[in-house]
């Protein structure tokens, strides 16, 4: 068995006085794809956003409990959020490339982190990131065109390339395919399968099939609680909990 990369323990999240997550504890292994499933509003995105502290942006959001990444506590005042986020990349629900050129989109991360010393090096990182995201062949002739001119699926892969460019260890994906057509979705799913070799991936998804196809572990959330977690195969064929069973068979949600 591989080591645990992320260890959550008793994570509570409040939006103002409303509690959104109730004591979530989870163990996420290295170089695996973990899918978070559950009906809308069950807190899976909230949990995802705790891992790279994106919830800091929401002023009324309070997080308590413990999340350890590589045995380091990240739910703390002392956590260096910037270095945490350079270690944990994120891909959003709606593709959000910067309104800049394709090249600049990918180059932004390495540049601000000072990962490169020369233009050649930067070019190399941009090219290799685009290659890893499976986008390079499609855009190699038009790297100076705005990233927003790409199609939705290409934009999403551009965002993945942008996340990869800072050399993270973990990639969080918040419903990355919900705004895409089935073909673009299939391409991204294939990509996730390849990325698994190098990165730990946590993906929030509404599509049960997608969870079944891309993930090794699945966690089922319901009303802010983690109902069940386990091997994807087991969850989808023989879940322990009746709620899980009802959800994956389409009886609610």
């Amino acid at each position, binding site marked *: 068995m591989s080591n645990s990369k992320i260890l959550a323990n008793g994570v509570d999240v409040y939006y103002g006085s409303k509690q959104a997550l109730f004591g979530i504890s989870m163990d996420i292994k290295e170089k695996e794809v973990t899918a978070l499933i559950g009906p809308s509003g069950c807190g899976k995105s909230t949990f995802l956003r705790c891992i790279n502290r994106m919830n800091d942006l929401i002023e009324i959001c309070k997080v308590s409990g413990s999340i350890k990444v590589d045995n380091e506590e990240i739910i703390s005042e002392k956590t260096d959020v*910037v270095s945490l*986020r*350079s270690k944990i*990349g994120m891909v*959003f629900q709606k593709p*959000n490339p*910067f*309104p800049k050129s394709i090249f600049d989109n990918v180059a932004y*991360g390495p540049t*601000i982190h000072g990962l490169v010393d020369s233009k050649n090096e930067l070019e190399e990182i941009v090219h290799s990131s685009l290659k890893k995201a499976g986008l390079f062949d499609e855009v190699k002739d038009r790297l100076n065109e705005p990233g927003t001119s790409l199609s939705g699926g290409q934009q999403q892969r551009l965002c993945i390339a942008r996340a990869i460019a800072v050399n993270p260890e973990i990639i969080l994906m918040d419903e990355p395919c919900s705004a895409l057509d089935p073909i673009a979705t299939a391409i991204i799913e294939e990509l996730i399968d390849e990325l698994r070799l190098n990165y730990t991936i946590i993906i929030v998804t509404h599509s049960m099939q997608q969870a079944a196809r891309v993930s090794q572990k699945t966690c089922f959330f319901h009303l802010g609680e983690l109902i069940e977690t386990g091997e994807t195969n087991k969850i989808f064929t023989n879940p322990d909990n009746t709620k899980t069973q009802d959800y994956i068979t389409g009886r609610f949600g």
Partner: protein
Amino acid sequence: MNNSIAKEKIISLRKKRSLEDMRFKYYGFTAMCLSLAVLVFLLYTIFSKGYTAFQKTIVLLEVDYNQEVLKLTPDSSDEDMEKGKFFRVKKQAIENFFPDLSKSDIKLVKKLFSTNVDKEIKDYFLDNPEVINTKQQIWVTAHSDVDQLLKGNSRRDVPEDRRKLNDIQLSYVDQLVEENRVKQVFNNFFFTKADSRHPEIAGVAGSFMGSLFTLFTVFILSFPIAIGASVYLEEFAPKNRITELIEVNISNLAAVPSIVFGLLGLGVLLNVFGLPRSTPLVGGSVLALMTLPTIIIACRASLKAVPPSIKEGALAVGATKTQAVFHHVVPLALPGTLTGTIIGLAQALGETAPLIMIGMIAFIPNIPTGLTEPSAALPVQIYLWVESAERGFQEKSAAAIMVILIFLFMMNAIAVFLRNRFERKW
């Protein structure tokens, strides 16, 4: 049966609704036509009154640059030339303007010429020193009274005692017209000279430069402060009572009458800090206070319009908050901010009341060359000219209004250009 009644009801209601639609369309159309008519009338009045100001009347004068009269020799140095007795040359020229003039006639003839003629005779000589001891035919500026008469702005059929020019002077002017010794040319003075007591040599250059310097001060002071304040309030400030209070008060500040800012400038900038009166520096500072809320409101609106996903994307790759804001959010908000800034500047350009309070209404016959020199501003200049009794200033004020309108029009064009050029889609 029941069904058909319901159907009829629906149809009649539908008719009523489409009628309502039509009515509203016509209301809008009428409103637009009305405002257009008013605008056309306004522009027509201004242009029909003001276009003559772009022409001036000049008179052909024979000048004898006699070295005895000038008290110069052909070998005189440039410095001596400056001190030549040109007023004597001019006196002689006017005495001989018409043959056989009596002493009282000469006085009347003298009043046909602008006071600027001395200088014109001198400048002509300094530019061509070789004309010494020759007679030269020079076109010189006519007095505003002649100018107005020839432009048809002042009437000749009123009793003599209510006219600026008496009957003898009128006959002189008619003689000049007959002999083709008078003509109308482009009025370069209007664009190159500052204010003057004499309408024929008064121009907008002084007040235009004053306005330019004032706007420069406004921009330098208000733009960075407004951006700093809006970015802080929008992106960094904690949302609490104090920031809410500040936000409300910024909106209130935008509604404060401009004269209050003028009083503030008078009380604080002039009296407490002792900054120089009547200068673009003080005028600009006062107008900057007035412009700040406008820019802040525009800037905050454009910052709000930037999708949060862009900022999230930057934060997610590990940008600090400052980096995310200044690398991504601010550049995207800049076109809107610039548009707001130009609108604020346009507002400042047309503002008169606060400038009066800080003394920019003084009569300044020089073109300012710096921020700390006394100067007028275009709207104040218009105010001054409209108040003047001389007929010659009437067309001048209309023409100055044209200048300020064109200035404003160009600023708005720049705003539209910037908005279209930098508008981004995401």
